[in-house]
């Protein structure tokens, strides 16, 4: 490959198309400029490339580099220092993303593995069908028929195991005769990733009705998951079917130097890459107007989940429905009337592009964000878990204390970094607001770095990491990530005012009381060695009452000392709760509003 000095990458979101230009300067890849324009997949344009060109025009204006030629094509490779780019890449989540139904034999086993495969490939799951999901056959058939997904992933049976149940799933699909969401008259793509001995039986029943692809079993044995082949098939079908049906994507595909990747798939790639490069456990979130995506890598295991109806504009009322009004009100640092609050959220739903004008309005949206983040994280924890159904050899003595299978992989005490992105986190006016929302929603334990994606360029860096990992990693570290600083948060509870931790920095001992929140000055790039000595009921990673020594790093907020306890308990009394919230806002240097 010729030397790559200039990279253009776009992400076509459901509302905005974002373009970034990366250039190699003094031997390092750096973000040069960014442009954006409204996405144009819908009438009157019906062509995604219009929005792409508009976003690239903005990049041209800001960079002074000529990128689009007289035929409205992206000039490649770069001709000189002021024209063209060496490679062009793109991701997309426009037009509703990739919508999938997954099916398996056992809900907690093969169907769950199928969910992980589909989510990991960037899909939104619209239903999970399992032989044992408790619904009657006709109910499942009705659902499959009504939903009109972009594709269906079927799984089930270990290799050499059940054939009959897979034939039943095929019969169910045959009965439903499902049609794809896009492309009237086309056959629905169905991926079979189940027991290899059932391929023939499955195919025999369904092959005339659907566009069938057969890949390796995603659960070849109870102890193993093999999600790679199913994910690759999903990605291929996404490009062949979904993208080709979306307006203008055929043209866009012909422009790019690698296949268009679904946006969440790309974000997952960059998270996996950095977790591996820095040997970290990472949690990342992208909270949008309609959906919230959560990504994690714990001990090398990557998991992605998407909560399709948790978001801050289109889906804001679904957060209200799922969380309940009380759970939203509990984070607002002033008194609110329930009816007013409900109407306010509804008005945001129907006018999703409006923004908070007053500080009080901002605090309300940030309260909803805490609940959306919390609910999406609960969902994530339920799916990021060890395989269920593994046989364990137990003795009588083990029966009482041996760990269950299917336990969550998410262990907050082992988490090294939380990365936030999406409007409410990336564009919060003050860095402390973003850090504060993430602390409340995730309740990190021990010592954890809090950071955000500066301008939401993780999708573009994700697709770049596939073709040029070095460039992707360099830009990620230098331009994408903005660190807020480490947070020290002991797990445990005590009575208000009791000392729960002593932190020693530069030989100076500082005692912290339960229920308090503090920020110590420590700037971007500055590090300190600290000894954290929790009292008897508190744990910072080494066990209750045991001290640890760690190197902490500051950031745009500083070193945060969160002594509010884990789990974080808010006062039940409204007046006391509001007073406490106001105290914490002040500690973080934030005005209350209201």
């Amino acid at each position, binding site marked *: 490959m010729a030397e790559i000095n200039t990279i253009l990458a776009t992400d076509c979101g*459901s509302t*905005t198309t974002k373009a970034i230009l990366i250039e190699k300067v003094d031997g390092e890849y750096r973000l040069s400029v960014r442009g954006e*324009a*409204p996405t144009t997949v*819908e009438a009157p344009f019906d062509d995604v490339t219009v929005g792409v060109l508009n976003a690239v025009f903005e990049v041209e204006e800001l960079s002074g580099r000529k990128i689009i030629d007289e035929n409205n094509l992206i000039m490649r490779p770069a001709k000189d220092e002021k024209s063209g780019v060496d490679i062009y890449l793109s991701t997309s989540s*426009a037009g*509703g993303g990739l919508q999938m139904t997954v099916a398996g034999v056992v809900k907690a086993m093969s169907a769950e593995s199928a969910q992980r495969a589909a989510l990991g490939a960037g899909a939104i799951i619209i239903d999970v069908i399992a032989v044992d999901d408790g619904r009657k*056959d*006709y109910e499942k*058939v*009705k659902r499959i*028929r009504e939903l009109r997904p972009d594709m269906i992933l079927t799984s089930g049976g270990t290799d050499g195991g059940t*054939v*009959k149940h897979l*034939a*039943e799933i095929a*019969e169910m699909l*045959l*009965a*439903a*005769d499902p*049609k794809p969401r896009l492309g*009237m*008259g086309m056959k629905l793509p169905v991926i079979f990733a189940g027991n290899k001995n059932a391929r023939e*039986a499955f195919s*025999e*029943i369904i092959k005339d009705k659907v566009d069938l692809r057969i890949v390796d079993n995603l659960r070849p044995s109870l102890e193993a998951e093999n999600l790679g082949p199913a994910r690759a098939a999903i990605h291929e079908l996404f490009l062949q079917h979904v993208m080709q049906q979306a307006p203008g994507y055929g043209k866009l595909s012909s422009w790019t130097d690698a296949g268009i990747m679904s946006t969440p798939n790309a974000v997952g790639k960059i998270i996996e890459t950095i977790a591996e490069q820095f040997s970290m456990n990472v949690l990342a979130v992208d909270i949008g*107007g*309609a959906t919230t995506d959560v990504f994690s890598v714990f001990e090398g295991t990557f998991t992605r989940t998407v909560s399709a*109806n948790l978001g801050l504009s*289109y*889906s804001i*009322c*679904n957060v*209200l*429905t*799922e969380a309940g009004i009380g759970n939203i009100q509990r984070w607002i640092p002033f008194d609110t009337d329930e*009816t*007013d609050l*409900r*109407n*306010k959220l*509804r*008005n945001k*739903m*129907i*006018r*999703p*592009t*409006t*923004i*908070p*004008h*007053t*500080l009080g*309005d*901002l605090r309300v949206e940030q309260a909803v964000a805490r609940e959306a983040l919390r609910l999406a994280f609960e969902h994530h924890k339920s799916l990021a878990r060890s395989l269920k159904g593994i046989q364990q050899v137990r003795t009588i003595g083990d029966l009482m204390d041996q760990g269950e299978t299917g336990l969550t992989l998410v262990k907050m005490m082992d988490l090294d970094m939380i990365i936030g992105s999406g409007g409410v986190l990336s*564009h919060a*006016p*003050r860095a402390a607001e973003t850090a504060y929302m993430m602390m409340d929603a995730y309740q990190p334990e021990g010592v954890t770095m809090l950071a955000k994606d500066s301008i939401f360029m993780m999708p573009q860096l994700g697709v770049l990491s596939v073709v040029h990992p070095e460039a992707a990693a360099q830009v990620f570290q230098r331009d994408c990530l903005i660190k807020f600083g480490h947070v020290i948060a002991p797990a445990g509870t005590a009575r208000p005012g009791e000392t729960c931790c002593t932190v020693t920095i530069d030989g100076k001992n500082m005692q912290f009381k339960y229920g308090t929140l503090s920020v110590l000055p420590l700037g971007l790039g500055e590090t300190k060695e600290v000894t954290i000595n929790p009292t008897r009921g508190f744990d910072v990673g080494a066990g209750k009452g045991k001290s640890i020594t760690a190197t902490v790093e500051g950031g745009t907020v500083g070193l945060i000392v969160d002594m509010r306890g884990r789990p974080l308990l808010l006062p039940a009394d409204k007046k006391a709760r509001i007073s406490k919230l106001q105290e914490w806002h002040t500690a973080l240097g934030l005005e209350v509003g209201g």
Partner: protein
Amino acid sequence: MGTAYTPGLKVSPRTLVRKYRRLPLKGQVLASQGEVVSPDMVVARTEIPGVMQTVRAAEALGVDLHDLHKALRVQIGDTVVKDQLLAETRSFFGLMRNEVKAPIPGTVELISDQTGHIGIRLTATPIEVHGYIQGKVAEVVPEEGVIVETEAAMIQGIFGVGGEKTGAIHMLVSNPDQPITEDMIDESMAGKVIVGGSNVSGAALRKANQVKVAGVVVGAIIDRDLIDFLGYDIGVAITGQEDIDTTLVITEGFGSIMMADRTFNLLKSLEGKQASINGATQIRAGVIRPEVIVPLGEDIKGDEVVDAVQALEIGAHIRAIREPYFGMLGNVTALPPEPVLIPSGSTVRVLEAELTDGRKVTIPRANVEIIAE
């Protein structure tokens, strides 16, 4: 900095309305190019294949999968009636009989030696698409549907529930700040599209539904009243499929908000005319707003239909769509090019405006909509 998006809902006394009347699956288009269609005329038809119901035959008969064929009394392709014998076994010299009968009428489509199931597919269900508006077929999309075109007055609402309905417009109030209350509704309003001002109460909406009012058009509704009316909460704004007799279109938002004068006066001028109304709303991916369409009829000759391009410029008439000025009207007095710090702490693109009460204010551009002149 991206292009500021300023949403504006259409409130037009005369515009060209094009409606794509599309089948969910390929089928037969019945209307032809240039044909005049009415709201209830069938313009396209198809059949949704029936659902297949499986009968666990081998299991019910207690036979081995591979022996099922010996017990069969039907073949693939056979048409069966309900309770028709599908398979049977006899034992003890024919004294003991096990039978499997058809649970539904249909066609035998599957006899599986993998599962021992027999699949019967129900007869296809016909689906018809109607004209919805009075107009002419401007385009036929073979096997999919037609585009019906008409010159009409059109009002887009901000949110709605309920599907397509038609009815004559009937004004219930004389001013846009008056709410609709229960006592204003009676049985004479069945099949009509009634118009109110600032709000419709939950009791009034229930009464309207009870007497089968076709549609209610009003400024706003309190969130809780809508939930009570529907019997469930709306989490995501995708509506139109609700099982209700009265379609609701709100023009301003949630709470109690006076209907914009322009909208109210237009509806008033259309009193007695036949309207097509649809509450279907989808705010995500492919925005659909609820609508009231009143075809003007071929006998009405007027100026050429031109939709004014709405531009955010000095002098433009705007309405604030978010607090602290929610619902207030004004005129744009300045459009500073540089982003400005607002009370929330964000730095965003703004406009300066003079409100109708004389106040001079700064508002984020994202928080206004342009009102067409």
